[in-house]
């Protein structure tokens, strides 16, 4: 039941996006996000949609998977559309019926917001989570933020905590499943009763889960100490990250597109 959660799922592959240096990918993602949020005309948001679509194609990720990842957002998307269409005021009335007034501006804003949201989610997944393994990702974050070490920010430790947290998500999900089965076998009932009763029914799951999470943390800490782990100082990496000229070309293209989107915005030739 809980196994269906696809949190930050990584799909191994061999596409251009998989091969790009994760550090550069993080910077590209930043540029991409600026671009998506900057786009505020129909033409520029159409351009963004095109760019996102090209990124999806390049990543080689199945379109069905993308559609599935957007499913939980459906409610928010519809909600945004309704709010914009019915409640935004403008100058050009398209449709009027009793108290309902739909303006051209509202309709356009709805299209803009929805495309923007879909692009944000799809772009982030395709650029980062779907095409970068969690290990690469935390490694890249550590490298990118390493200048902060100079002002005594424990960058390595944060990255290590992130890695461990990601590593243990599936383990804890499996554990939760087991505990739920065991308590159900003892007649625990999670499906009926009011809110308070249901909340109380969670106690037999949460306590064993916390106990085992702490136990695991303890064991892991000991195992790490046994192997002489003592933080990031003087620690070397087996896999060195290398960036290729192609990575920089990719980055430059994205920056170029970002600038282009900015100019399309100010060109203002539709509205």
């Amino acid at each position: 039941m809980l196994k269906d959660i696809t949190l930050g799922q990584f799909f191994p592959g061999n596409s251009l996006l998989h091969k790009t240096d994760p550090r550069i990918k993080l910077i590209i993602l930043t540029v991409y996000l600026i671009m998506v949020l900057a786009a505020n005309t129909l033409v520029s948001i159409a351009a963004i949609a095109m760019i996102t679509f090209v990124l999806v194609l390049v990543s080689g990720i199945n379109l069905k998977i993308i559609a599935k990842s957007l499913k939980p957002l459906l409610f928010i998307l519809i909600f945004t559309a309704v709010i914009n269409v019915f409640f935004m005021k403008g100058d050009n009335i398209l449709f009027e019926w009793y108290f309902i007034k739909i303006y051209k501006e509202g309709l356009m804003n709805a299209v803009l917001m929805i495309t923007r949201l879909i692009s944000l989610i799809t772009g982030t997944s395709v650029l980062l989570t779907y095409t970068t393994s969690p290990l690469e990702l935390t490694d890249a974050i550590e490298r990118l933020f390493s200048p902060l070490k100079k002002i005594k920010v424990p960058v390595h430790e944060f990255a290590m905590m992130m890695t461990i947290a990601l590593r243990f998500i599936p383990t804890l999900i499996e554990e939760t499943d087991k505990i739920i089965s065991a308590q159900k076998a003892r007649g625990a009932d999670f499906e009926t009763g009011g809110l308070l009763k249901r909340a109380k029914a969670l106690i037999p799951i949460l306590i064993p889960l916390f106990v085992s999470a702490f136990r695991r943390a303890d064991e892991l800490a000991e195992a790490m100490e046994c192997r002489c782990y003592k933080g990031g100082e003087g620690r070397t990496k087996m896999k060195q990250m290398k960036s290729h000229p192609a990575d920089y070309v990719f980055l430059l293209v994205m920056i170029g597109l970002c600038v282009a989107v900015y100019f399309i915005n100010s060109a203002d030739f539709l509205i």
Partner: protein
Amino acid sequence: MNSLSFKNVSVVYGEGTPFRKVALENINIDFPTGEIIGIIGHTGSGKSTLAMLSNGLLKPTSGNIFLENTDIWEKPKEIGKVRSKVGIAFQYPEYQLFEETVFKDIAFGPKNMGLSEEEINERVKNAAKFCGIDDASLKKSPFELSGGQKRRAAIAGVVAMDPQVLVLDEPAAGLDPLGREEILGGLISYQKQKGSTMILISHSMEDIAKYCDRILVLKEGGVFMYGTVGEIFMQAELLFGASLDLPQITKLFIELKKRGLTENTDVYTVRYAKKEIEKFLQ
């Protein structure tokens, strides 16, 4: 009389996805009332899936499961009743403990069944006795106990529900020989007193041969062999085909048979072996 019967039961995980996996295929078995049935099989042979099916934690993809001739999925809303009739202690059950005291934890099952205070008290005391938990430990927090005692407390929590069928998934895994003996011995004496049906899942052929009346050997989601302990050990050599290990004394007799010194391989206890050896020495 059969307490639990499986008719054409199949379980498929992840149907319609690339991860499709057949866990059990067309299982037909009857578990007679009042017997101890051992289930043995290699990792991934479907033992735990079978346990989950027996009390409705898992619904079979096809086929029916009968508890005393009633289909357990006939009224899906009343599956809770089935769960109080078929008790399962999962592998490493000590991780399910959560209450303030051992007593309260053992009482969790009976309480969910809606029994009276007195009845609960009696059942907890009784279950604790069979599982070897003394009165002092009942008042302790379950997290203060040692590993072996935690295991006992958790199993007692299932025994206290007084199920008609008690399913134990590797109850003795990871315990020292004395602890194994005590836990299994206590459960057997409980079973003898109540006359309930017990299903013991284990990797250890030695334990199974020692305690069970009947053995079910699973292989790759299907029934490989099913019969009384004597019947299974008559064809002991076949068990190697299911990648199972045999008791050492049986291995010895298989070797003796190869050399033409004996006819029997249904030897699984040292006492019986002694008798056999004395016979051909005469």
